[in-house]
């Protein structure tokens, strides 16, 4: 299949371009090419639209195997494609936990057959994510994991965290850390503060996150080995990461759209769609997250796409599951709240969702350079649209952003030259 995308404003942060330029992008045999060998099978007129590398999500939950009633690899990647993603890295908290090579093979093979996006499995740090013994990191690396994480749970002891970093480094692998001091967080259901007092809900203080961020930065500094901090939600963490980076500690960090789009107040009325872990924080934390993205302290934006069945959300607040779906709102929330507001340049924003997550996952992806896999996003950055959860392709509908007006809509997604999402034809 030969595709020509013409008249679009092309921006590829991996190629150091500052501003979008109008130029064609040619695709042949699944790769970006300088020119087509024959007439295009399809010509996409992207006049008025933008052309970017396909988005890369370093943190999602595809729920497959074990929780296919929430999501599976087919539905999850279809949802990702509709959101402009061409690569997604899925966390290992499946059933059973992805802590061995067989599970990695299962995920990769199913994704190869059914995936509308590239699926990069993340392996568990510890067997069963129990925080006791190291999982078979080497064998999983051989089978194709791109990083390790016990996401959903912290690696509670400093000792195991250090060992994970030391061991994984020889397999060219970064540890992604879910930072949560359970002695402070256990039993909590939302941010600890005025709103938890008002709602009579047990709180999770921001120090439950930042204390572990500080610990991991210290271990990374001590060992000289990289650590990636997942889902940063608060000012205290941003400050620690900024200080560590200034000292040259090899730490990278991600945040998620909900941490710059929503505050703890969204929990009012016991709205379980605002329940997540780490919890939504204060307006001051939102400001700190945006500052962190703008100055590069926070490297990337990941979705933490966390599908849950309605029966797991339509409950007493304390009993409801944590998390929201994110693939189909991430780009719009980011463009609307970060770029349109002038807080980040378009290039910074696109880099934070393409080439930078690729680098953290150590993949040569996220570029429109000639020869690269033809992972392409064509987006409309002008016409506002209302988020409509009924149109989403995820099996789950747990989003607090239904009905919200956003700008920044993926209209065409190509994964290895295949059209995985198309609103243009």
């Amino acid at each position, binding site marked *: 299949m030969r595709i020509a995308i013409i008249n679009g404003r092309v921006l590829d942060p991996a190629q150091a371009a500052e501003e979008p330029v109008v130029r064609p992008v040619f695709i042949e045999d699944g790769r970006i090419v300088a020119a087509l060998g024959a007439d295009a099978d399809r010509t996409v007129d992207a006049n008025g639209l933008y052309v970017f590398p396909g988005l890369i999500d370093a943190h999602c939950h595809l729920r497959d195997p074990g929780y296919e009633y929430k999501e599976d690899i087919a539905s999850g990647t279809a949802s990702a494609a509709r959101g402009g993603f061409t690569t997604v890295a899925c966390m290992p908290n499946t059933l059973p936990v992805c802590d061995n090579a067989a599970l990695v093979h299962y995920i990769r093979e199913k994704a190869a057959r059914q995936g509308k996006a590239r699926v990069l499995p993340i392996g568990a740090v510890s067997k069963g994510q129990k925080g006791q013994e190291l999982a078979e990191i080497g064998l999983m690396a051989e089978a194709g994991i791109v990083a390790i994480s016990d996401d959903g749970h912290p690696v509670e002891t400093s000792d195991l965290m250090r060992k994970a970093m030391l061991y994984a480094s020889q397999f060219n692998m970064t540890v992604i850390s879910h930072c949560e001091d359970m002695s402070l967080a256990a039993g909590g259901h939302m941010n600890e503060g005025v709103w938890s007092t008002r709602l009579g809900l047990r709180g999770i203080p921001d120090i439950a996150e930042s204390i572990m961020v500080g610990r991991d930065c210290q271990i990374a500094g001590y060992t000289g080995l990289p650590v990636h901090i997942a889902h940063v939600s608060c000012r205290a963490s941003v400050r620690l990461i900024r200080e560590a980076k200034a000292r040259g500690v090899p730490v990278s960090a991600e945040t998620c759209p909900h941490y710059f789009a929503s505050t703890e107040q969204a929990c009012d009325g016991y709205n379980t769609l605002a329940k997540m872990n780490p919890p939504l924080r204060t307006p001051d934390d939102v400001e700190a997250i945006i500052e962190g993205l703008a100055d590069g302290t926070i490297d990337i934006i990941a979705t933490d796409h966390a599908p849950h069945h309605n029966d797991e959300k339509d409950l*007493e607040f304390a009993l409801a599951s944590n998390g929201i779906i994110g693939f189909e709102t991430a780009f719009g929330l980011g463009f609307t709240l970060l770029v349109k507001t002038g807080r980040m340049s378009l290039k910074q924003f696109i880099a934070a969702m393409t080439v930078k997550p690729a680098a953290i996952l150590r993949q040569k992806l996220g570029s429109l350079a000639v020869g690269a896999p033809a992972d392409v996003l064509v987006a409309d950055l002008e016409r506002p649209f209302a988020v409509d959860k009924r149109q989403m392709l995820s099996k789950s509908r747990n989003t607090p952003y239904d009905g919200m007006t956003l700008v920044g809509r993926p209209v065409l997604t190509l994964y290895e030259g295949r059209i995985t999402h198309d609103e243009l034809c």
Partner: protein
Amino acid sequence: MMLSQKDLLGIQMLSADEIRLILDTAETMKHVISASSKKTAHLQGKSVITLFYENSTRTRLSFELAAKYMGAASANVSASSSSVNKGESLIDTARTIDQMGTDLLIMRHPQSGAPHLIASRVKASVINAGDGMNEHPTQALLDLFTMRARKGDLAGLQVAIVGDIMHSRVARSNLWALLKMGAHVRLAAPGTLLPPGLDRLGASVCPTVADAVRNADVVMGLRIQLERMQKALFPSVSEYARFYALDENILRLARKDAIVMHPGPCNHGIEMPTPIYDGDQSVIQEQVTNGVAVRMAIMFLLTSRRNA
């Protein structure tokens, strides 16, 4: 005037005028309780269900008697808080009860927000009889009724609340209610039993019980749950009693005509010594009686809103 909402989920949703309406209506109801024939027709033909997922003696009985005095058909459902694990969700249980023609559904639940979850799913009016650490609105209303009966105007009243504020839905509902009525609220508790942000919400947080009680018109003790000790929230009962009990020396700091309140059940000798509990300043028994009157008023007002 009528209540603006179908349900009574919390004091936070009530206006000062609505609180006044409830208290005024309860004045009338109190006459019924003291009459020789305790029977009115206010709830004739109405059905009242109490759905309690937590133990309760006084609150449940108070609602039941209030319903019976007004001629309602009433029934109780005692549910284990673990029934979620047994297969039926709270929403399903509430809908089932609703389908039997229930007018008033009175619910107590260990999770904050549980009555809010069902209120929008049922036709019945939901009355929150205590949800987790969130609210216990009828307790606060009976406390206000008692304060008003003894002290007159609530505006400007100095009210000290002492004890486990963190876990107390009584403290929260009283705080919201008193602030709405223009009273001043001073809180004292061990630092581990104070939730954050109380000062920003309009209360004064005092470093010692003496600071809270000094010149108070009303001194309210809260129940301390002994299992909090195991969670290291305070070191021992005797240490708690030494620094946080409402004893004679502390009460001397309050106004001479101050009243002593407690929502019950009381740990005698810990929250307050028995002579204080039974003393001249105590209105604790009166609170119990007023509880029936206030609950009658609330049930009447919610059903008359339904009739309208």
